[in-house]
């Protein structure tokens, strides 16, 4: 409960707040949206520091020992005598090689080392180092979320995969928003034949069954591409589909904005039409644009997942959340080594966080919810 302000108090401070401050204040009151924001910040930080946080490189494999069960719950903190000790894991023994069954070898213990040495990597793409946040000494291996069919650490691959799966959304949305704003702005402000033509293109893209168009587009580029090319291609294809709906709404907004007095004033001052669109009209659509952009990030994340799951996206040995799920396509893997679907929980968490955050942002940007 807040205390009622004194009637004699100075004029409400709200008058001096910029719209962005108001938005932020409203957003902060929304607990679900703030939680989602923290989850997103955490996820994206993990993606940035993936190579340091992951105990292994995404390609590091142990082909003699595939499908080891998750060790997250088998990290021990009490030694044989029952007293507390630094966390450790037991060594692993192959119990049945054909069924891929393993058991703990309690004769050996491997403490989890902080900042231990491991695979080489470039921290923040700059600093070459071989330190990792936590490792265990060879020959033991730490598989927090288990290992896959090639004996690669699923935890490490999820961290590396987050770089692909999470950045697709941000870059994709940046490209499609840019195109959407420009096309919508030009169509709305210029009108006439340009408007007619651009809107027919928009309608065409919206009328197509989009996932198939994405697949046809992907197929038309062939498969002998490097991983970075495939990544860029996926982003571009998804943005190519994504800009249309944005452009249509922006055009609608621009149609009403262009009658505003400040636009007439800018015209009277003799600014060029493009300048007026970019400098005077589009900035006023920004709060709407940010909300829709946030709400459409999941489309890009799920698009990458779908393409990689179907095998035309990110290719092995590169990791992405979508291509990691491919292992689960094999029903016997899915039932015997269920941990192969762990990436699914991360996709779900990321998409959910974007949806909840976007929803909160929409409420906060909506002047009708003024409080």
């Amino acid at each position, binding site marked *: 409960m807040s205390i009622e302000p004194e009637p004699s108090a100075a004029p409400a401070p709200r008058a001096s707040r910029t719209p962005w401050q108001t938005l932020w204040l409203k957003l902060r009151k929304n607990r679900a949206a703030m939680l989602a924001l923290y989850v997103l910040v955490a996820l994206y930080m993990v993606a940035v520091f993936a190579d340091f946080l992951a105990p292994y490189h995404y390609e590091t494999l142990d082909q003699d020992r595939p499908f080891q069960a998750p060790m997250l719950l088998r990290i021990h903190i009490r030694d044989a005598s029952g007293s507390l000790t630094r966390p450790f894991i037991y060594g692993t023994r192959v119990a049945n090689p054909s069924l891929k069954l393993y058991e703990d070898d309690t004769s050996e213990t491997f403490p989890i080392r902080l900042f231990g040495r491991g695979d080489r990597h470039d921290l923040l793409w700059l600093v070459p180092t071989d330190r990792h946040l936590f490792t265990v000494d060879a020959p033991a291996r730490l598989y927090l979320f288990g290992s896959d069919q090639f004996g690669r650490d699923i935890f490490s691959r999820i961290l590396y995969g987050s770089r692909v799966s999470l950045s697709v959304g941000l870059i994709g949305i940046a490209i499609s928003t840019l195109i959407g704003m420009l096309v919508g702005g030009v169509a709305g402000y210029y009108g006439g034949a340009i408007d007619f033509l651009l809107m027919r293109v928009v309608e*065409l893209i919206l*009328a*197509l*069954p989009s*996932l*198939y*168009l994405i*697949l*046809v*587009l992907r*197929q*038309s*580029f*062939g498969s*002998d591409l490097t991983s970075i090319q495939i990544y860029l291609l996926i982003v571009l294809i998804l943005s190519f589909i994504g800009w249309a709906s944005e452009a249509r709404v922006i055009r609608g907004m621009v149609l009403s904005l262009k009658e505003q007095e400040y636009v007439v004033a800018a015209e009277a001052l003799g600014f060029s039409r493009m300048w007026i669109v970019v400098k005077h009209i589009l900035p006023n659509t920004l709060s709407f644009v940010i909300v829709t952009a946030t709400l459409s990030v*999941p489309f890009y994340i*799920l698009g990458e*997942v*779908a393409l990689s*799951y*179907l*095998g*035309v996206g990110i290719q092995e040995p590169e990791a992405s959340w*979508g291509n990691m*799920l491919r292992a*689960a*396509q094999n*029903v016997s893997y*899915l*039932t015997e080594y*269920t941990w192969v*679907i762990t990436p*699914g*929980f991360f*996709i*779900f968490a990321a*998409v*959910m966080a974007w*949806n*909840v955050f976007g*929803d909160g942002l929409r409420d906060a940007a909506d002047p009708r919810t003024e409080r």
Partner: protein
Amino acid sequence: MKTFLLRRLLALLPLLLAVTFITQTLLVLAPGDYFSKLAENPSITAARLEMLRAQYHIDSENVFVRYGYWLKGAVQGDFGYSFKFQAPVWSLIADRIVNTLILAIGALIISWGLAIPLGVISAVKKDTVFDRLAGGLSFVGLSIPSVFFSLLMVFFAQKSGLFPVGGIHNQVYWQYFTPWQKVVDTLWHLVLPATVLGTIGMAQYMRQMRGEMIETLSQDYIRTARAKGLSERKVLFGHALGNAINPLITLFGFSFAYLLSGAFITEYVFSWPGMGRLTVEALLDKDEPLVMASIVMLTAMLVVGSLLADLLLAYLDPRIRLE
């Protein structure tokens, strides 16, 4: 009404032309074709490959030539033979479309059957525990990736043994089943994929329903209805629901269209022999005639879906006239 229908169906033609032309262009741009795989087979000579390509009119790299051949056949109703199945594409599509319809209708029943009551209750009990819970669940439904949800369901089916893991009917005993058993068997196979598709749609429609209902309940005529002493049941179902549901009917058409075309991930994971899976596999195999015919079919279904929504809305809402 008649002119409206005629105009909408006529508008379908340029759309189909544009869509098929774009698809054809992209297919021509794609490196390799269906027969590239045969080239690895040493018993097939390069000359034989050229002959095959010429026979199926995919030897030209000129988009207009290729599209011309296709269009000429298509106008005469001949969409060609699938390279992979060696069967007329329409016979393949006809089989699959029934399966896709079964899946779509199953999903629609689940999603709308849950979304409308849940949305109405949430609106009436706004800001209660029920509303919050339903709101939270709708976010889960909205966010769960269909690949992941489908895989979880397959896992559940395999572990519990309660439901079949995939396919549309029992492969072994299907031919011995009585018609009634066939229906039951298909429904049994339908439960899980329809649940996956239904849940994802349900979340969205429930939120929409709740929003519309809250909006409607704040209208003056609802206050009037209450003021004249109508029972709450009559207010809700006699006055509010009918008005709140109109915007959802447009959504209904879109959802049907989406289910017909957008279900391919679920079809893929559950090995459901529907249109989506047929198209995706044709695309991955570069089975050109099949891709073209599927795209025509999918686009037409999308358009017909939204057309049906418009018709339904005009039928239910007397304020709307189709001119």
